[in-house]
């Protein structure tokens, strides 16, 4: 693939320059996953595999409808199933489509050391540019949602691209198009938030008092949002983080540590250099040599 032209993205991993902002006025997109109308049919998974030409190895049944077992370089989205008995003792089958959340403040991008391997487009999509990826796995550590997976075959990191190739030509992502019940919607983030609001009103009227939108502010909001019946307890949905945030360790590592370390190293070098300039080399003087030889000779004399 050819080089990126930086006018179109607002963030670029490991880059030292601010991308030009002149044209970054496009509206931001969002995918809204309404888990309350999701039937867990896996059409999204199927469509994702088909569109993106991904075929995981055939696995085994492992005690759940969740198949394949986990996200992988060949599995960019995955239905997760949780059987939950509510306070009234009634069963709720909470089914959630897992995958990249396309954070406004992406931890993966923050952690990535390869310039331009992770970018965020002006429309909010966070994309991995595979030919720039070095396979270090830092994005895995940066991600608060445990999404990126490193391929054992080509040592590159993979995740949902929000079908940037489709969105680029004005189409919705493959999963959105396929979703039989309209549980996955796609549009501007503003529209999606508005629509989510209507859904939440309906859900509250059906007895889900705590229904709400999952758009966690800790990561600046996400471009993949959920409508949840139990927005007060996201972790019920197969461990959706209650308070996702980029880990403090990653923040420190990719935040303050980077400039401090570089300054420290530079300083050490500079101090050394100027010490040399000021003091000059620490030479052995002739006096030293005389003293040294004498010390040896004295000793030799003492020895019988």
């Amino acid at each position: 693939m050819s080089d990126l032209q930086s006018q179109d993205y607002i963030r670029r991993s490991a880059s030292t320059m601010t991308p030009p902002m002149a044209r970054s006025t496009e509206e931001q997109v969002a995918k809204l996953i309404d888990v309350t109308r999701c039937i867990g049919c896996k059409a999204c998974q199927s469509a994702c595999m088909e569109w993106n030409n991904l075929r995981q190895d055939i696995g085994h049944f492992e005690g759940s409808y969740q198949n394949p077992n986990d996200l992988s370089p060949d599995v960019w989205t995955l239905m997760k199933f949780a059987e939950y008995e509510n306070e009234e003792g009634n069963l709720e089958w909470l089914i959630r489509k897992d995958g990249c959340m396309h954070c406004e403040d992406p931890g993966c991008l923050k952690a990535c050391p390869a310039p331009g391997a992770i970018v965020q487009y002006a429309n909010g999509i966070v994309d991995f540019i595979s030919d720039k990826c070095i396979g270090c796995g830092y994005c895995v550590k940066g991600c608060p949602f445990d999404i990126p997976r490193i391929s054992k075959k080509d040592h590159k990191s993979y995740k949902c691209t929000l079908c940037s190739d489709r969105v680029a030509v004005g189409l919705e992502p493959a999963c959105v198009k396929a979703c039989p019940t309209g549980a996955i919607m796609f549009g501007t983030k503003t529209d999606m938030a508005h629509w989510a609001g209507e859904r939440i009103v309906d859900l509250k009227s059906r007895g889900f008092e705590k229904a709400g939108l999952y758009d966690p502010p800790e990561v600046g909001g996400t471009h993949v949002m959920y409508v949840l019946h139990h927005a007060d307890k996201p972790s019920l949905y197969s461990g959706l983080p209650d308070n996702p945030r980029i880990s403090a360790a990653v923040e420190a590592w990719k935040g303050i540590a980077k400039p401090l370390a570089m300054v420290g190293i530079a300083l050490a070098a500079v101090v050394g250099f100027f010490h040399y300039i000021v003091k000059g080399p620490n030479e052995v003087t002739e006096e030293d040599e005389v003293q040294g030889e004498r010390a040896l000779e004295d000793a030799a004399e003492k020895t019988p």
Partner: protein
Amino acid sequence: MPMTRREFIKFTGLGLAASSLGVLGFGESGVAQAAAVRPFKLAHATETRNTCTYCSVACGIIIYSMGDRAKNALSNIIHIEGDPDHPVNRGTLCPKGSALLDIVHAPTRLKEPRYRAPGGTEFKTVSWDFALDRIARLMKDDRDKNFIAKNAKGDTVNRWTSVGMLAASASSSETSYLTWKVVRSLGMVVFDNQARV
């Protein structure tokens, strides 16, 4: 093939989404963008309208094939997705429909007639002529032997019960009609389809 565009139809939220799709892409900077993202794989693919082969919702699908049907190019199906004009599925597809490509190109698709002789342990590839000649011969021999023209009471019944047929459930109505004609002209009554299972 008629391809009238559907009128804009409201569909929960999708109307909303559709209205804003224009601004979603990469807008004016789209050209620059295209260099970075994966190239759109359907740009010049040939579109063919079809119907999903699985259940009876009968979702409209669009089959994308490589090649423009020029004489020297053999079409190859590269992608299948929902037909957004279709009033029932409105472009959506279930996990089976979304994976239609893999059934079209299944490694276990049959490519040649095969024959297994009595007591044999393997199939062997045969010609169509061999297969159809032999089948016709077997059928005729049995029909001549077991055809029941009249029942015990002497009434004309003209039925054949010793060879039967199960008809497909995904073949077209035209295929079914032709099958019906052939089967009934032979007097075959052990005849059924997959309606029950």
